[in-house]
């Protein structure tokens, strides 16, 4: 660097907002909410400072996994309209900086979780980060249309972590919540991938609509909606939640099913004709928020 001015340096100096963008804050909202609900429905309580720290660690862990995902997928992101303006493909950040940030944040979140709550919750958090980065991002995403089916498990961990942070173990209810998010992920992402199919095709990502076509994807969306609805309602007949949750879960799942049937009936091949898919995608986010919200409401009523 001798004799070189700052402006001649080749490595871009990222703004702090770029580091924040690496953590995918919008995706984090759902992760934090489901983790918080897992924590709130657990059969014990944590002091507020420890509960806050547990949720913070879930958020930081999710942010770390997202940063590592962006580090690894910078080449793919550059090829897709939806992701081309992210910090690395846009040239605002050095890849190495994203890697260091992601690894550092991963260790920080896991160690803080272990110190503040318990090491079992920290271990699940570590597994969820590793699963998202190694199994989903590095192994599955570019290789198989089943990428989000298996990779979806990574996003299903937060309620399990929230529960484990309080109790130090896992039980039937958090496992059902895990199953619910696991089964919710394919219809959610396949609805999106139907109307951004050309983006995935251009980047060579073998999403189901790219590999198997729209018709097959629409059938799969319905097929996954059925067990997802069963998992959503299950806590009620199993006695793990009351009628407030049961009725809300039944009504929401019925609405999800109706939208999935409308997607199945749609024959459009172009995004402009995919209103049912866009509605299902938007509703699926609301669905998960509402289901988990109903569970917490049920617990406190």
């Amino acid at each position, binding site marked *: 660097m001798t004799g070189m001015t700052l*402006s001649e340096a080749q490595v871009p*100096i990222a703004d*702090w907002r770029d580091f924040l963008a690496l953590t995918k804050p919008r995706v984090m909202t759902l992760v934090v909410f489901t983790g918080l609900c897992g924590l709130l429905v657990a059969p014990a309580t944590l*002091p507020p*400072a*420890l509960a*806050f*720290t547990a949720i*913070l660690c879930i958020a930081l862990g999710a942010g770390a996994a997202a940063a590592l995902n962006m580090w690894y997928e910078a080449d793919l992101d550059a090829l897709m309209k939806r992701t081309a303006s992210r910090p690395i493909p846009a040239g605002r950040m050095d890849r190495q900086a994203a890697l260091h940030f992601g690894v550092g944040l991963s260790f920080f979140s896991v160690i803080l979780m272990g110190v*503040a709550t318990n090491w079992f919750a920290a271990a699940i958090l570590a597994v969820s980060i590793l699963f998202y980065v190694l199994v989903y991002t590095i192994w599955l995403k570019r290789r198989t249309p089943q990428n989000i089916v298996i990779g979806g498990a990574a996003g299903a961990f937060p309620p399990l972590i929230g529960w484990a942070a309080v109790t130090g173990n896992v039980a039937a209810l958090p496992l059902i919540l895990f199953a619910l998010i696991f089964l919710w992920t394919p219809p959610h992402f396949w609805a999106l991938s139907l109307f951004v199919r050309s983006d995935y095709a251009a980047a060579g990502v073998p999403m189901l609509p790219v590999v198997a076509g729209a018709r097959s994807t629409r059938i799969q969306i319905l097929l996954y909606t059925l067990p997802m609805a069963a998992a959503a309602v299950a806590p009620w007949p199993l006695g793990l939640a009351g009628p407030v949750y049961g009725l809300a879960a039944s009504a929401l799942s019925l609405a999800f099913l109706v939208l999935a049937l409308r997607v199945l009936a749609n024959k459009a091949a172009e995004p402009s004709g995919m209103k049912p898919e866009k509605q299902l995608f938007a509703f699926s986010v609301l669905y998960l928020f509402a289901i988990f919200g109903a569970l917490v409401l049920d617990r406190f009523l």
Partner: protein
Amino acid sequence: MDEEEIRRRQRGRAIVMAVLLGLFVILVYAITIAKMGLYSS
């Protein structure tokens, strides 16, 4: 990217880092107090 912009970004990152470190100190203090409460009850 001109030198002034680089300096501005570095300053922004330094300020954010200082704030985060300050919040972390407060958080560790709160965790310690909460843990002491847990073990004494």
